[in-house]
């Protein structure tokens, strides 16, 4: 038996040498296997690293959400929208049930949403500061750092802010004059605005400030602030979550600036990437990007993008100029004159000269910018410690403002540059719920009680607006969400006090758990248990009527999670085509070979070989061909993968950071694709040779007697 197998293998090997078409078939099989093993291995590695990214950044291993939701959960959004999920209100019960399932480590409640935040334009900000100062001076309260100042100090600061305002007005006036000088754009200048600018430019206007500071401020707010159109709306995607649990479960998360939100408190951590990309002074951001690009070997002289950055930096100096009052302007002019050895007196020209960066002077200018310019301006629109006013549409259709303190910024290690992982900021659950505006049954009851006590009116959804803006409307605000907009209802001072209070308040775990959420991440002890735990969750949910749907991280990441599968399908199609062609050629070649070997096969039959032996002989021949060349393909593929693993594949762009789960993808050689490749090869060779092999068994021993044709 063994010696007979050896004989057949020997015949197979030697026959392979004879026919040159086998080289072609071999090459095809080799190529197909190489592609399969190499790309399959890469996709597997990609899928694993993406799993690390998705699981480690937002999704956890499994996501649960209400089965009654309108949409499927898509954590990274689907077609640019967040999915419409039905709120879950029984989290404690759900948590208890799921935590009992074997292999579950933690359940982290979540809710993904988005809101616009406005970082007011420069004149708004200056006016607000001035208003605070005036109020503090009048003894009307305000932030501690202001109320603790002496009257003289407050006077000095007010004076400085006034100078700043007048500086801004001068710049605006300059803009308007330039526009008027140009016939085409002159029409665009509103004469109404022009008149206002003329008025506030005069000393007489400011002489009246002390007599009626608030009236003056109101005029500026109403007439001048709207002229400055550079208000920036920033869209902030955030996930409301139990921040402590989140930090423990997603251990790749690290605080980049500032600090973590104190346990149980309200607050948010902004994605560091968003903070850098969208909240940083544009000029500084562009300088950072140029610096990065130069470090990566790009050169300004030949790089269109970098050239554009330089050009934008030189022309867009207004952002900086507007931020400076007269004093600071003079300081900076002096400093820049010294640094650049220039006699130029206009700040914007000096800045433009400073930012005229080339490959030669870049590092020096960069350092100068950060030494001379940034300390005198707001580098970020939002700073650690700021309280952000977040506007969001509640579920009940109202715009709600919720103030949330920014404690810091965060990133996921390895994914610092990935927009996909870094587009979402973190918010505490309480603030999230306020913004989400969902009223649980008992909260609604509670709210009714309070309203009854204070004799406040209940505001129905239909006439809410009229009520709220109507004369003397008196409505109760509640920290937990209601359909009432508390911002509009409460006086500013009261509001401020209440908000300070809210920011400092520490919530108990029960308070955190007891409320609405949209989805939850289930962290497992072992990632390989995903399928089993999903089944368990479904079973528990059915048993206890929890109405949950559990999906793997892959499904939860929406289209993103399907990308790898799409590539995998493409690879399979490509490999299938290669192997299909191989099958056709093998089939033809073996058919030809069988016909050519009619006499030999007839002879073997005549001298006593059974049909089975002939069948085995032909099959073994193509199996040997397949395994031989497929084996070379597998070895080469694994070899290339291994070689790639030594250095890793550098992520070509920021998007790939997410898929690579870091700056480099380290592919691993696993047996999975090899085994599949072997099975495919065996199938392909046997299936394609079956007909010729069967034909061979039908060759009559009589053919041995007949002379060769």
């Amino acid at each position, binding site marked *: 038996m063994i010696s007979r197998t050896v004989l057949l293998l020997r015949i197979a090997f030697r026959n392979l040498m004879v026919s040159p078409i086998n080289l072609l078939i071999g090459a095809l099989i080799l190529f197909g296997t190489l592609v399969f093993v190499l790309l399959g291995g890469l996709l597997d590695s990609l899928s694993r690293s993406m799993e690390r990214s998705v699981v480690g950044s937002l999704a956890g291993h499994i996501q649960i959400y209400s089965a009654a939701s309108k949409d499927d959960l898509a954590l990274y959004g689907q077609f640019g929208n967040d999915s419409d999920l039905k709120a879950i209100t029984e989290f404690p019960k759900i948590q208890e049930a799921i935590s009992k399932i074997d292999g579950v480590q933690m359940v982290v409640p979540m809710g993904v949403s988005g809101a616009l935040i406005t970082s007011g334009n420069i004149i708004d900000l200056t006016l607000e500061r001035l208003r605070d100062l005036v109020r503090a001076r009048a003894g009307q309260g305000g932030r501690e750092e202001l109320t603790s100042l002496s009257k003289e100090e407050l006077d000095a600061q007010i004076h400085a802010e006034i100078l700043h305002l007048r500086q801004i007005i001068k710049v605006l006036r300059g803009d308007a004059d330039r526009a008027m000088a140009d016939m085409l754009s002159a029409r665009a200048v509103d004469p109404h605005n022009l008149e206002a600018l003329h008025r506030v430019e005069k000393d007489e206007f400011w002489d009246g400030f002390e007599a009626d500071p608030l009236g003056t401020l109101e005029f500026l707010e109403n007439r001048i602030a709207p002229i400055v159109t550079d208000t920036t709306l920033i869209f902030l995607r955030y996930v409301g979550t139990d921040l402590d649990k989140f930090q423990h479960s997603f251990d790749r998360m690290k605080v980049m600036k500032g600090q973590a939100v104190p346990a149980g408190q309200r607050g948010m951590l902004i994605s560091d990437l968003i903070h850098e990309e969208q909240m940083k002074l544009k000029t500084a951001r562009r300088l950072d990007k140029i610096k990065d690009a130069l470090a990566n070997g790009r050169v300004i002289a030949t790089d269109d993008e970098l050239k554009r950055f330089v050009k934008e930096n030189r022309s867009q100096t207004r952002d900086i100029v507007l931020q400076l009052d007269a004093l600071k302007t003079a300081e900076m002019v002096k400093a820049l004159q010294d640094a650049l050895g220039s006699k130029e007196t206009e700040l914007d020209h000096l800045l433009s000269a400073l930012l005229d960066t080339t490959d030669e002077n870049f590092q020096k200018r960069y350092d100068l910018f950060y030494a001379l310019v940034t300390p005198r301006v707001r580098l970020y629109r939002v700073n650690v410690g700021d309280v952000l006013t977040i506007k969001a549409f509640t579920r009940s259709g109202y715009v709600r403002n919720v103030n949330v303190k920014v404690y810091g910024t965060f990133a996921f290690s390895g994914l610092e540059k990935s927009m996909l992982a870094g587009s979402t900021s973190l918010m505490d659950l309480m603030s999230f719920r306020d913004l989400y505006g969902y009223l649980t049954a008992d909260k609604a009851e509670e709210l009714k009680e309070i309203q009854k006590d204070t004799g406040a009116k209940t505001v129905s959804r239909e006439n809410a607006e009229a009520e709220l803006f109507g004369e003397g409307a008196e409505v109760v605000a509640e920290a937990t969400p209601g359909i009432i907009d508390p911002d509009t209802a409460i006086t500013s001072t009261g509001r401020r006090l209440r908000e300070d209070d809210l920011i400092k308040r520490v919530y108990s775990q029960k308070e955190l758990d007891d409320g609405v959420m949209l989805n939850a991440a289930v962290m497992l002890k072992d990632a390989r248990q995903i399928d089993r735990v999903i089944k368990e969750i479904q079973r528990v949910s059915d048993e206890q009527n929890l109405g949950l749907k559990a999906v793997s991280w892959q499904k939860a990441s929406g289209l993103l999670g399907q990308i790898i599968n799409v590539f995998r399908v493409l690879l399979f199609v490509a490999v299938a085509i290669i192997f299909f062609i191989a099958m056709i050629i093998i089939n033809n070649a073996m058919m030809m070979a069988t016909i050519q070997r009619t006499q030999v096969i007839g002879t073997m039959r005549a*001298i*006593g070989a059974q049909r089975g032996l002939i069948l085995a002989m032909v099959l073994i021949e193509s199996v040997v061909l397949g395994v031989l060349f497929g084996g070379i393909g597998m070895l080469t593929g694994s070899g290339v993968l291994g070689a790639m693993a030594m250095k890793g594949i550098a992520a070509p762009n920021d998007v790939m950071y997410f898929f690579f789960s870091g700056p480099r993808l380290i592919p691993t050689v696993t047996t999975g694709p090899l085994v599949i490749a072997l099975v495919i090869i065996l199938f392909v060779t046997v299936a394609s040779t079956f007909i010729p092999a069967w034909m061979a068994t039908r060759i009559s021993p009589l053919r041995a007697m007949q002379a060769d044709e």
Partner: protein
Amino acid sequence: MSNGIVTIQDVEKEYSLGATVVKALRGVSLTVEKGEFISIAGPSGSGKTTLLNLIGCVDTATRGDVVVAGKNTAQLSERQLTDLRLNTIGFIFQSFNLVSVLSVYQNVEFPLLLQDKLSSGERKKRVESLLEQVGLNTHMKHRPNELSGGQRQRVAIARALVTDPLIVLADEPTANLDSQTGQAILDLMKSLNQQKGTTFIFSTHDHKVMRYANAVVRLADGKILGRESPELAVAHAVGMDAPAAPVQAAS
């Protein structure tokens, strides 16, 4: 007629070619005794190969009985026929029919591997002794295409005899060889016949070849004309075949 090693009784063989039926053998009866060195002679188309095919169990008769080594071939399955061929019959072909990708040694070993009865050591001894008998023990590693026609036919003879069969069938074994080489091959066959007592049945239309036989069965048009001594057969054959070359004596 005694029970020979091959007994053929009233055998007819018909081939159908579309609508027409070709009668290749028309009532043939023949007995071959053990140890005979017998020639089947006749002109082209007379049915020599057809007869050998029936004896060799690669084909079955349309009518009549073919009994080989005590077995009626008409009653055997395809599988059993194959086994019968493997264990009782050796074949020598006109065009040698060696497996070109196997060495001389491996070609001779082939039937032993099919039988799978002997250990590899015994096989080696057997193959080497046969190659020595055909004078090719120095060429064991050669491939068939590195050998002359005569050498190839010697390999084929060794392959036919390696299983120690009862009967060796050879269909015009010398037709592809020049006359000298052909004679050497016949000498070899004859000596093996004498040494081992193996029955040889070979076909030819060459009267030089007939001379080697103990007896010649003369076929014409699918019928046996008679079983004669070689001398008589040659004399008969001269009349029907191409002009005969001067008769050379057997060795």
